């Protein structure tokens, strides 16, 4: 319950800072351009929105993790009873953001274009976007405070990691998700990427919490 209260607090703070709006707007811009004309039959065009969601969710997680100033963070940590619930609350907000952007990215072409997909492929597209979003969350957390203090380094490291990992078609979770979508988007082929991405997000949260405790 503490993590939920922390999540609500962080959401309120992040909303007031307005910095989380930039990555969300960026994803919307990508979707508008991508699905604006005739993107071709689904699910292949989703490969591009999945690739866009990866850095966008990393940016979102980085922003969320850095929303609080370090001293403000120490007050929150003392109130929550340790860095664990605060890290968990940050994860909750980031995952909520991933889900929101996933739904938006999958729904956009179904509304804006005349192409349709069978329910199985729809589930596959949702899983693939979610895998990219959760992986981005993991990358964002590992590039944010308390692991990386300076925002310049955070952006540089996140950019390198995202570019290096997104373009390997065999590499789970993002590369393999993109390949699976291009190969037809069967949900069965996307279960492993989603699970790997979920584990990555949880592990990144735990690492962040452990480093915060040591600080």
């Amino acid at each position, binding site marked *: 319950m503490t993590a939920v*209260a922390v999540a609500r607090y962080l959401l309120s703070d992040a909303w*007031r800072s307005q910095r989380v709006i930039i990555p969300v707007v960026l994803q919307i811009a990508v979707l508008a351009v991508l699905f604006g004309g005739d993107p071709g039959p689904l699910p292949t065009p989703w490969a591009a929105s999945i690739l866009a969601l990866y850095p966008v969710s990393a940016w979102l997680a980085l922003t969320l993790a850095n929303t609080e100033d370090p001293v403000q963070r120490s007050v929150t*940590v003392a109130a929550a009873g340790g860095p664990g619930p605060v890290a968990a609350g940050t994860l909750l907000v980031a995952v909520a953001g991933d889900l929101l952007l996933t739904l938006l990215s999958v729904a956009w072409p179904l509304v804006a274009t005349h192409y349709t997909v069978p329910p199985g492929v729809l589930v596959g597209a949702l899983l693939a976007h979610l895998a990219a979003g959760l992986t981005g969350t993991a990358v964002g957390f590992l590039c944010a405070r308390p692991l990386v203090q300076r925002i310049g380094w955070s952006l540089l490291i996140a950019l390198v990691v995202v570019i290096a990992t997104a373009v390997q078609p065999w590499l789970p979770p993002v590369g393999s998700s993109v390949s699976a979508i291009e190969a037809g988007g069967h949900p069965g082929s996307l279960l492993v990427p989603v699970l790997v991405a979920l584990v990555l997000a949880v592990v990144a949260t735990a690492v962040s919490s452990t480093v915060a405790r040591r600080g």
Partner: protein
Amino acid sequence: MLRAEGLHKRYRHGPPVLAGVDLALEPGAPVVLAGANGSGKSTLLRILAGCSAPTSGRVLGRPRVVGYLPDRFPAQLRMPADVYLRHLAQIRGVGVDTGLLETLGFTGRRGEPMARLSKGNAQKVGLAQALGCGAGLVVLDEPWAGLDVDAAEVLVELLTGVDAALLVTDHTGRAARIPGARHLALESGVVSERHSRSLGVSESAARSPEAGAAGASAGAGERAARSPGRSESAVRSAETAPIPAVRVVVLRCADPAGLAAALGVVGRVDGHRLVLDVAGSDVDGLLLAALQRGGSVESVR
């Protein structure tokens, strides 16, 4: 009761900040911690409040709800004061004490982002979140910083009434007016009693075997002099504290039992006399503290 045992802290690439801090905090026995700038007070407070872990050593018995005010409470919060206090109360799982801001003389606008508040008003919000949550442990780092005279007076009264375990650092001297407070100093990474070492706080140096015998004679006297809350820590140190050379100090005053309680020491009461066994190195500090509390010195042997 909160106990810190053998706390060591060393940041990366730095010298040790804490080098074996033992500390016991209990409700009704406020502790005021002194120390030079950069002596590690804030680090110790952060560890006790649960914000960071010691490199080695442990903190036992930390209550579920902790009120913590950091040194330099951030003045750049985007939330209004009321919203911030409500969120922090929810994180702690307690109700909001909306009256505390008024008690402290908060003059800012409650619906306005805290970044627009003056330093003093922001500090009052920091105090309100730490003191208004019914915490079992309250840790305040320089709480008087930035407060006006009226609010500073109110804070002394508020801290006097705190029934939680309380640890305060202070450079303004106002903490000296918290009645019954123990005054400790952090120096070279260890905490020591400022006027007497015969309390629950001692350096984690090697315990000398004769300390037990010396302590036993101190403990053999009338124990009515000390308050119940202090008994455990006093007994613990009486049994274990290293006492290099024991001096017998005889103090005179109208209320020897009260004086012993005020000094936080164990001694024999003999009419208007208070007889104490004190470590040689602590005699000066103890005499000074006794004189400040209305005692007079009859003899030191």
